[in-house]
């Protein structure tokens, strides 16, 4: 029902079917025709009359929203802009230069249109190309935020559109497209064999492969990031042979990775030592066996000047931005919250919720490897927090280790914990990366001494077997780790470990030998021989 009134004019429409109505309105001085959505209230006030449209926001077409969930403010902002500007989104497009606010709203409206109106997507993108004045920077910011905040809730169709519009953004070399691709890569989950996740892996490897030349020119580091992601995913994908769908995906991922190795080896080197850690899990994959052979025996086959030996990679610390690639933004927010605000002793419930959310599905515990690497290398608490009663990193890592049910995952988690020990150089490496392991070992005495024993055993296993050719280097580095930890006050002394009755005498003896040799190694490690490694 509706009614019209003389000024102040109030037109109220309640449409039961939520459809659009076009109502021609006459008010004295002018005629205006506009589209009313459901429950719109139109006011005419003031002199001369200005009209306001206050509409009840239409339901979101982008996300699945559960009944008891509050509206997401970002989704609301896109919907509002779309609803406000919808008439302007059809040709002929206005040629007047929009103000700053109008420009931002247009971006939001066009984005909403692209994602929710598939049949009009090409019209919307043409519109965007026509009005853009900032190299698409704001548009990609919106897209990146959408992926980071809402990806898991997006309706299937919208995800398809998202990939399409990302492809368009690569094509126009949009400012910020690298951030968008990183956000999408972060949404691929390790150990998740659901249709939705495998679809995303497939779309991304397809997109990045298809846009190879473009990305190589404009955003080469994306290829390094993608390599890290797909090598890591392959470790999970090669473990199972579920069906032909995953075989096709595996082939695409393998092809992409091999291509980076053979055509752009310098981009592989950008990853640093964790490249080797990732490649280890693919040693049994036939296509990677030549890569391994060349890395170990014939480095010249990579035709990259400056690269002559695998130890150059060992000595190159992996930047923390790679470890973010395998953690979703939500996981990251939860972990940082836990390690910044939750007091030791109050963590139990948070740990239950985290495990229920992220390690629920059988194969999903593989992500613990990436979480431990993230905690060691990409989350360094301030001194203030270290000295407070907030739960320390070593305690969280101890809990994560206990969450592992599969031995190969547990082994990889311990490797992730110790990885920076193996090739530690004080000048290049960060003491914060090596601190959690020693603190976990020492603080587990006496209550959880099994943990201490377990970790110590594993450390010596690594020392003896990780890279037999480089054993001397590894022993030297681990000695230097112990030296640095004591010298810089991370541990007061190793007495608790050495004098603990419950640790096997054999292990204690080896540990003592390490301590004894560290002064000699510390001297050796500071020799100029280190400088002969080329900058990678």
């Amino acid at each position: 029902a509706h009614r019209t009134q003389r000024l102040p004019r109030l037109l109220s429409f309640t449409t039961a079917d939520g459809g659009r109505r076009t109502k021609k309105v006459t008010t004295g001085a002018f005629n205006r025709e506009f589209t009313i959505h459901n429950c719109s209230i139109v006011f005419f006030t003031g002199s001369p009359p200005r009209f306001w449209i206050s509409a009840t926001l239409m339901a979101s077409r982008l996300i699945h929203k559960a009944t008891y969930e509050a509206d997401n403010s970002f989704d609301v902002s896109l919907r509002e802009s779309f609803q406000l500007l919808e008439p302007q989104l059809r040709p002929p497009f206005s040629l007047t230069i929009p103000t700053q606010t109008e420009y931002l709203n247009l971006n939001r409206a066009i984005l909403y249109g692209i994602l929710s109106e598939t049949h009009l997507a090409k019209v919307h993108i043409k519109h965007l190309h026509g009005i853009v004045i900032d190299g698409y920077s704001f548009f990609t910011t919106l897209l990146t935020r959408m992926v980071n905040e809402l990806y898991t809730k997006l309706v299937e169709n919208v995800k398809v559109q998202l990939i399409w519009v990302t492809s368009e953004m690569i094509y126009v070399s949009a400012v910020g497209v690298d951030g968008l691709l990183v956000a999408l890569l972060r949404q691929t989950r390790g150990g998740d064999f659901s249709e939705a996740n495998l679809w995303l892996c497939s779309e991304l490897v397809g997109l990045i492969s298809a846009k190879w030349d473009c990305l190589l020119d404009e955003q080469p580091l994306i290829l390094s990031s993608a390599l890290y992601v797909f090598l890591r995913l392959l470790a999970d994908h090669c473990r199972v042979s579920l069906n032909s769908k995953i075989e096709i995906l595996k082939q695409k991922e393998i092809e992409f990775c091999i291509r980076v190795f053979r055509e752009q080896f310098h981009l592989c080197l950008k990853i640093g030592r964790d490249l080797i850690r990732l490649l280890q899990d693919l040693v049994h994959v036939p296509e990677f066996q030549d890569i391994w052979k060349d890395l170990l025996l014939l480095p010249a086959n990579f035709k990259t000047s400056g690269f002559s030996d695998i130890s150059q990679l060992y000595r190159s610390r992996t930047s923390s931005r790679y470890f973010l690639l395998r953690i979703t933004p939500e996981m990251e927010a939860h972990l940082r919250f836990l390690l910044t605000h939750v007091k030791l002793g109050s963590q139990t419930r948070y740990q239950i919720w985290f495990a229920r959310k992220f390690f629920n599905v059988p194969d999903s515990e593989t992500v613990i490897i990436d979480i431990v690497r993230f905690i060691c290398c990409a989350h360094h608490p301030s001194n203030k927090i270290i000295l407070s009663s907030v739960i320390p990193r070593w305690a969280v890592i101890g809990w994560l280790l206990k969450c592992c049910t599969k031995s190969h995952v547990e082994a990889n988690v311990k490797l992730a914990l110790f990885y920076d020990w193996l090739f530690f150089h004080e000048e290049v490496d960060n003491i914060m990366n090596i601190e959690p392991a020693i603190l976990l070992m020492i603080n587990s005495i006496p209550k959880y001494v099994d943990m201490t024993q377990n970790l110590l055993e594993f450390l010596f296993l690594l020392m003896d077997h990780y890279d037999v050719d480089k054993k001397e280097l590894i022993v030297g580095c681990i000695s230097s780790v112990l030296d640095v930890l004591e010298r810089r006050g991370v541990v007061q002394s190793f007495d608790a470990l050495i004098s603990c009755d419950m640790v096997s005498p054999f292990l204690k003896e080896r540990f003592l030998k390490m301590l004894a040799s560290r002064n000699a190694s510390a001297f050796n490690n500071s020799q100029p021989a280190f400088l002969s490694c080329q900058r990678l």
Partner: protein
Amino acid sequence: MVSLKEIAPAARNNINAHLILLEKGRITSEGQNKTCLALVADETASVHFQLWNEECDAFQPGDILRLSNGIFSYNRTNHLVLRAGKRGQLEKVGDFTMLFVESPNMSEILWVPDPNNSAKYIQESVISPHSRIFPPLQ
């Protein structure tokens, strides 16, 4: 917005609070309806919350909730519970990233009418420092 440590039993539906759901009990039937008791908390205190019907399945431990126009009163089995009530609303606004305490628990307090104002309740004594139905985990 009110802190949980400030609430007292009353017949009014005026409680607006920011809460985190810690634990849910078993879902049981009460006639046509289903209900379940839960433990919720904020940075100042915890309290028992009574969920009704779809609320029982809609919320999970770890969820951060916004309660509007809730009511804190004795239910049919004489438990002192917070609930949305007929005129209130419970919404999920996030999850995980909120600090909480489990002590005191406002439902585990012996309330008596204020001698100066019979419409109000005051705390007489503590029955238990934390929930006896959902004790703190070790």
